[in-house]
């Protein structure tokens, strides 16, 4: 791993350790009260989920265009990030909604399209795992659909009737609520970057291991 990796891990760990203090200092939202503070982990998880889906799609498109395995490894790592952070989004959301809306789940456009995006990321990983030779190209095609779903997820709350907060909420946040959100967002993006770096490294070493075994087989 590069030299900057360990200090970056320490910075990321410190940011996550500080985040509860920063969130505790944020004021309560007037109608939802304490439970609204789920927002400070829910929304960064959702943004990282959407970003990872886009990264997976772009890397897959580059892999399909060039055939370079480096892009394929990036797409694979990004798909795992999409599954992980998508799960965090889809679990923290209902925990917030149960108190704020009185229901665990509603089938509105935002939540349903997020679930579809998460299942596409899962399908990508399952295809990679069990699809056999050539499955990386099929999976790359699937990742393009996952990326195409992202703008739909983002704007869905503005075009379809829902009780999900609109996209205007975040730009209008006061500093006392906006700072904790940006702090958590920076922590989550740094974590995503570090986890992706680690996952790409695993894939690189796995490819190296496969090459060594292949050469040993050829020698034998």
């Amino acid at each position, binding site marked *: 791993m590069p030299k900057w990796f360990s200090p970056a891990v320490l910075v990321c760990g410190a940011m996550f350790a500080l985040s*509860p203090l920063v969130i505790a200092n944020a004021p309560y939202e007037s109608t939802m009260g*304490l439970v609204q503070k789920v927002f400070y982990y829910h929304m960064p998880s959702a943004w990282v989920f959407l970003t990872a889906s886009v990264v997976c799609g772009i890397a897959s498109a580059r892999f399909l265009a060039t055939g370079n395995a480096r892009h394929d490894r990036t797409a694979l790592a990004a798909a795992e990030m999409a599954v992980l952070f998508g799960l965090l989004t889809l679990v923290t959301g209902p925990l917030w909604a149960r108190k704020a809306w009185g229901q665990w789940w509603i089938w509105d456009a935002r939540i349903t399209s997020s679930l579809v995006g998460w299942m596409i990321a899962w399908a990508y990983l399952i295809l990679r795992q069990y699809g056999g030779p050539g499955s990386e190209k099929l999976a790359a095609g699937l990742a393009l659909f996952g990326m195409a779903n992202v703008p739909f997820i983002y704007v869905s709350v503005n075009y379809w009737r829902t009780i999900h907060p609109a996209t205007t909420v975040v730009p209008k946040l006061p500093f006392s609520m906006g700072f904790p959100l940006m702090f958590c967002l920076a922590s989550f993006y740094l974590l995503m970057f570090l986890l992706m770096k680690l996952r790409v490294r695993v894939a690189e070493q*796995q490819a190296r*291991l496969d090459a060594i075994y292949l050469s*040993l087989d050829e020698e034998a």
Partner: protein
Amino acid sequence: MMRTLIRGFAVALVLAGFLFNGTVPDSIATLLAQGQPKQQEVFTPIDQLPPQEQLPAAPLLVGAYAFVLLMLFGYLFIVSRRLTVIQQEVDRLDRDTKRT
């Protein structure tokens, strides 16, 4: 004596006027409503409230944060372990191929 009687009659007239207009009771009711919480007319068991008013927020909030941190640490642990295992395997094979 006469003066006291006239004063009492005047006060009685003013009070009767207020009472017939209904302005005094209304003003008093308004002032009372502003100064103290609303009078409770019925006791409602908590299980008859809408679901979002029955639930305490703290367990949901703590649950959400705990889930996020557990999943992140779990994933970090799994990936780090995989990397260590693969790295050891690669190093072992490198040593073996150099020896032969």
